[in-house]
């Protein structure tokens, strides 16, 4: 078969609306967005510390978010951001 191409219009949608436990485009979008917003993008030194240990573990957490049954609410428990309100390092 050909490639599956997921087209997006824009980020949005109600994340609490899980419905059937199937992998929908929305689920995949969430994994992809979490992947990017948490693992990529510019980091402003000195102000953000991400304590994510390993790509595999992050992915595991992401998959758990996607795969959790409808009755289980709540948020990914593993990831903790430590925010240092220190000065920006202009270097």
């Amino acid at each position, binding site marked *: 078969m*050909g*490639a*599956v*191409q*997921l*087209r997006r219009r824009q980020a949005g949608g109600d994340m609490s609306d899980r419905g059937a*436990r*199937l*992998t*929908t*485009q*929305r689920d*995949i979008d969430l*994994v992809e967005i979490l992947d990017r917003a948490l693992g990529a993008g510019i980091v402003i030194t000195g102000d953000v510390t991400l304590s994510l240990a390993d790509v*595999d573990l992050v992915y*595991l957490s992401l*998959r*758990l978010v996607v*795969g*959790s*049954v409808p*009755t*289980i609410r709540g948020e990914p428990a593993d990831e903790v951001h430590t925010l240092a309100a220190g000065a920006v390092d202009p270097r």
Partner: protein
Amino acid sequence: MRIEGDREDVARGLAQLVLTLVELLRQLMERQAIRRVEAGGLGDDEIERLGQALIALEQRMEELKEDFGLTDEELNFNLGSFENFFGETDPKQ
């Protein structure tokens, strides 16, 4: 009878969640094992033991799936279950 049905659903739902997690971990461990073998530095006996552990894990997983009557699709651990997408994909390309 309705109460029993609900209890069963809950148990099944939990089993689904737990087994999804277990399967993910199994896949991760298998991937790690593969990487370690590829990287070299493992003795023959270590490879043998790793292999046996993976075999045991895989068998246990099959047993659990059977016990709960769950299929791979229901475990939903594979993003590649594309047939589950309901009209969200563009059929043209």
